[in-house]
């Protein structure tokens, strides 16, 4: 820690940090566009200008090392004038089309234009116009709005190690262009959402979220992402009781600055084509009717197979494991197979696809492995178990977005569990716990609706064995139970009819 003087006040700040971050820690906000704590300093936007005692000219704050006894000014009259002038510069070619722009509301340029800029401009010439371009399979670039902070270029290079975006031409004609080798090659990596997020203006936009909503409509909940076993902390953006997207968490310094596209855009699947009623053979039934039907089967059966559980919270898994113990106590041969996909059988649990996304695309496989127990069996044993079992419980394994996307239900048929059930005529004995009213729910003998990931509070265990809490961001319909509660309700029915002790 070193002592510095800012605007005549003494502060003790961390000298290892960048000056911008060090000042942020003590509550002094210096406006910046191009500076990002995770990227190298570029000093392009010149908005973070500060006055240092003994230095005649204004200096870029982000490129100034913190030194003991340094005396700086961050809100003197000279600085305020310089910032105003810089804002005028940034806005020369900016179209100021905030009503149209999707970034409005979370746009740094908008914020700083209000806080540090002038009300009018002296620029009378025509603004440059370059039409919008598609640069990625989910990414658009609006050159007019760009202020050339090169955050996107630096992000691709430094974090993703990919030379896909570059600044081309010079001076007033400078534009950001996709320079991926190959004819009409588009950016296709998993961080296009992060690129549009890191852009301080609305130049980079995601195609799939384009014009869907406005930023100020969202209610925000701090929760975790369901996409893979990393369980990144995220902010859920909710509108009309529907999660539109995940955004990076509020406390970025602690919980991470970036999230991948897979998590960011898959949450809307939780609110499309939902199953909100109990079903027997595709027909709407009461919950008690399904319990009674299942009770009849349960009485006769000897072998019970439970598939899945890697998507459920620790609390639910605990309840399911109690149910399993009770079944076993009553002479039912109960097998709980939590492995449902190829990568799980290959033991490919923790390999990183990129710096965030893991190959394990279920949120809670670590805990499921611990509770259900890994017997090391291969795929054929599951196939055999499906054939032999009298009752098969499938827990949330055939619902979006875990086994398919709601736009593409055909992908469901490629799921391993789906195929095994199909091949071995297993649908007649299947109890499907699912969130979605899809082909699987209609085919299954009994379908139980359960709460989705975003509709319940729960604890999940991530790849490093850390327990993380997910918060309820969407209100479920009244009476909708989660998987653990359903098992409890079924067991209560059994004990009422004295089927189990």
């Amino acid at each position: 820690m070193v002592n510095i003087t800012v605007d005549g006040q003494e502060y003790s700040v961390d000298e290892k940090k960048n000056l911008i971050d060090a000042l942020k820690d003590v509550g002094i906000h210096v406006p910046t566009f191009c500076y990002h704590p995770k990227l190298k300093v570029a000093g392009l936007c010149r908005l973070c200008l500060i006055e240092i005692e003994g230095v005649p000219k204004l200096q870029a704050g982000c490129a100034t090392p913190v030194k003991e006894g340094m005396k700086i000014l961050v809100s003197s009259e000279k600085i305020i004038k310089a910032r105003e002038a810089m804002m005028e510069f940034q806005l020369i070619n900016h179209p100021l089309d905030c009503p149209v722009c999707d970034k409005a509301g979370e746009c740094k340029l908008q914020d700083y234009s209000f806080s540090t800029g002038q009300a009018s401009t002296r620029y009378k010439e025509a603004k440059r116009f370059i039409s919008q371009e598609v640069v990625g399979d989910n990414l658009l670039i609006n050159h007019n709005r760009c202020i050339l902070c090169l955050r996107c270029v630096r992000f691709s290079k430094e974090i993703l190690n990919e030379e896909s975006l570059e600044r081309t031409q010079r001076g007033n004609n400078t534009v950001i262009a996709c320079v991926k080798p190959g004819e009409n090659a588009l950016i296709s990596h998993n961080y296009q959402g992060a690129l549009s997020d890191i852009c301080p203006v609305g130049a980079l936009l995601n195609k799939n979220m384009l014009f869907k909503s406005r930023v100020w409509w969202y209610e925000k909940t701090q929760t975790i992402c369901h996409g893979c076993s990393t369980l990144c902390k995220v902010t859920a953006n909710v509108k009309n009781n529907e999660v539109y997207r995940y955004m990076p968490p509020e406390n970025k310094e602690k919980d991470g600055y970036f999230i991948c596209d897979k998590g960011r855009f898959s949450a809307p699947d939780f609110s499309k084509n939902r199953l909100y009623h109990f079903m027997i053979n595709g027909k709407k039934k009461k919950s008690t009717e399904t319990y009674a039907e299942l009770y009849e089967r349960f009485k006769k059966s000897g072998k019970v197979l439970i598939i899945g559980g890697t998507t459920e919270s620790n609390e639910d898994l605990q309840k399911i494991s109690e149910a399993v113990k009770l079944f076993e106590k009553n002479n039912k041969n109960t097998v709980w197979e939590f492995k449902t996909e190829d990568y799980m059988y290959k033991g490919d649990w923790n390999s990183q696809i990129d710096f965030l996304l893991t190959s394990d695309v279920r949120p809670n496989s670590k805990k499921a492995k611990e509770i259900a127990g890994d017997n090391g069996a291969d795929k054929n044993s599951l196939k055999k178990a499906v054939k032999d079992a009298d009752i098969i419980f499938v827990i949330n394994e055939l619902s979006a977005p875990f086994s398919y996307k709601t736009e593409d239900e055909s992908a469901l048929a490629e799921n391993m569990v789906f195929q095994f059930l199909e091949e071995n005529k297993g649908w007649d004995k299947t109890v499907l716990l699912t969130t979605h009213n899809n082909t699987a729910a209609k085919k299954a003998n009994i379908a139980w609706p359960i709460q989705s990931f975003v509709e319940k509070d729960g604890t999940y265990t991530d790849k490093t064995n850390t327990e993380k809490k997910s918060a309820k961001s969407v209100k479920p319909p009244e009476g909708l139970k989660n998987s653990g509660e359903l098992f409890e309700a079924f067991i209560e029915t059994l004990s009422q009819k004295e089927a189990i002790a």
Partner: protein
Amino acid sequence: MATVKVHDKYKWKWYQKFYFISITSGMLVTLKYFLKCAILRQQATVQYPEEQRGYSSRFRGRHRLKRDEKGRERCTACFCCMWVCPAKCIHIEAALVPPEKANLYPEDKYAKVFNVDHLRCIFCGLCEEACPKGAIYLDGDIPKPFDNRDDFLSTKDTMLDKEGGPIIGTRL
């Protein structure tokens, strides 16, 4: 609780108690119209409904969507009116302008669907105030009764002006 007296009852002057001035000024208005009709033959009434009086410029009728000087739709689907509407009667769906229609819209975003439900609308004029582009004004005709619920739903086809013009600004 103590009562704070904020207003004293007006004390009438002695000459005001005769009502003479008030009655005279009232009768003068009557006399003015009498003279106009009787001597100058100017009529004080109109032959409604064949003939109709104009409304004040501040009258709020049904919504009209405006076009700019080049005939392009002013609305850019910013959702400001939809957001501010206290009756939630406006429904907008935004879309990206297709390249072949780029000359019809000033920006790259346009309202694919713009519906106003006149059964919900309370004609408060907040949409007019919220619009940053001067695209929506309540300067249409008076809200009429219909025998069908569907007719109360104004769509873009019925609301959009045929010709463009300069921005109206604040109506006084």
